């Protein structure tokens, strides 16, 4: 068991990175600019930060077999973590006064184009 665990971790890590890469491209196609990836703070981590005009989308990427499972994966606790991390990010932006934040989800589903769900939760 002890030898297999790092292998599965590595596989999950790789699957996560591929998912984020696909999600980033899906957002770029929609006209968003990806301004940060895997943004880490003490409060939590944000998968992707995308911007279009003054609108900033704080994006959580979830790879799941179905869309419903992906949406369920954002628990209230996870939502709080993302929100806190977003506050950290926003505080470091020089133009924070004109930015509007929205919390989105990109679901990576098997054999499908990534699904973008805007405003998956509200603060």
């Amino acid at each position, binding site marked *: 068991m002890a030898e297999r665990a790092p292998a599965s971790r590595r596989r999950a890590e790789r699957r996560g990175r591929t998912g984020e890469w696909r999600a980033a491209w899906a957002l770029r196609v929609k006209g968003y600019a990806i301004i940060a990836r895997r943004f880490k703070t003490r409060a939590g981590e944000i998968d992707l930060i995308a911007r279009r005009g*003054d609108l900033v989308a704080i994006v959580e990427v979830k790879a799941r077999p179905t869309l419903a499972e992906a949406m369920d994966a954002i628990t209230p606790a996870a939502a709080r973590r993302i929100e806190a991390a*977003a506050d950290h990010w926003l505080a470091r932006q020089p133009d924070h006064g004109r930015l*509007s934040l*929205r*919390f989105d989800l990109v679901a990576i589903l098997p054999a499908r184009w990534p699904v973008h769900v805007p*405003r998956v939760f*509200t*603060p």
Partner: protein
Amino acid sequence: MVGRVTTVAFQGVEAVPVDVQVMVAPGKMGMQIVGLPDKAVAESRERVQAALHASGLSMPPKRVTVNLAPADLPKEGSHFDLPIALGLMAALGAVPADALAGHCVLGELSLDGTIAPVAGVLPAAIAANAAGKGLICPAACGAEAAWADAEMAVLAPVSLIGLANHFRGTQVLSRPQPAIRAPATDLPDLADIKGQETARRALEVAAAGGHNLLMVGPPGSGKSMLAQRLPSILPSLAARELLDVSMIASVAGELAGGRLSDRRPFRAPHHSASMAAMVGGGLKARPGEVSLAHNGVLFLDEFPEFSPQVLDSLRQPLETGECAIARANHRVTYPARIQLVAAMNPCRCGLAGTPGHVCARGARCRADYQARISGPLMDRIDLHVEVPQVMPGDLIRKSAGESSAAVAERVAAARACQTARYGALGTGHIGVNAQCPTAMIEDVAQADRGATGLLADAADKMRFSARGYHRILKVARTIADLDGAAAVGRIHVAEAISYRIAGEATALAA
């Protein structure tokens, strides 16, 4: 990007203007409502978002802050949905802001964007008209709002889209027409009652002068039947009274389909009624039965079965014609000029005074039962009448009693006489003898010498209270009006005294 819309908050039947300010600014996407909203107002956030979505508008990806000013006035009710939605649409530029400036807005939103009816549209319309504004209200309440003024601009859209189209000019809404409920034709008729000539006469006098009436009689003698026929002989409401009555009904949410009725209200609460239900109160200081019966009849069947506190709470409204409800958060005065009609059995077994009946509990039975009604309340009832059991002979007799229409005609004539009199004296809202101020009744009655002599004698012997004395004069005035007599004569005073001492006699027997 601030949208401003005017709406109202209700304090009793008064509509207080409230300014809804909607600001759309950068920040975390979401919507917040401030300005002391209660639960129904705070929840309007979800309804507004859903209704905007259903109307094809999406929420802006920005922070939306809604302020309800003045911020220290508690806001309650569901009618803030529409002003908030319109304020938001104005802030987004979906409707022109200057089009909203001249309007007062109220209405509840459904999730599909249609506008649901709300309570209190009539007082809001009257307040808006006084402020020189138009009104935007739900379609179902349009007929009610149109009553406020014939010249006033009233918009009654079915949905948010309908209103947006109106402002865009693609589908202009027409002004709703004031609607009146069809006169009730199925009112029970006095002709159904056989015998009971004394009680019928007392009912007629009560109707003519707006006097309070108490009927005492054994079960099954027809007290409730008589009371239910009172609305059929009362005249319909005058224009001013109609608005007063409808304002209270509107605030209580009792105007079905926005139609006003010119029938006088007839309220018959069950005897389990609480004090808040009777005089008004509760969480929002809502009008009680006395106020809902304003300008009409409050009928209390099984009078002594009401709790004593509830009955005594009627004393002040009966005297002043209004109820002032004071709570920690509310100080509200509702008008309550009512005519009290009560019915009761003479004792617990109901048969005291019936020839041949002997109660196992003796005279105490009757005394205990009647003692439940306090003296001061009894003193406020002008007409006491015994309603004995109907004789079998009367029941078998084919001939029907006089119909309501004939009695209503006499009552209307007597009321016209009073309206002309008090109109000439310029006493404002007073329309019937029962409401005549004490200072004026001596002049109004114009009692001749025989009448004053009789009244003085009776007052001396029977020890009437000062209020009782003046109330006898008022009743005598009404009886003279029914007679078409200019001055109150001896015979009128005699009849009035007989109604008074029927009560004294029951009290003495007790």
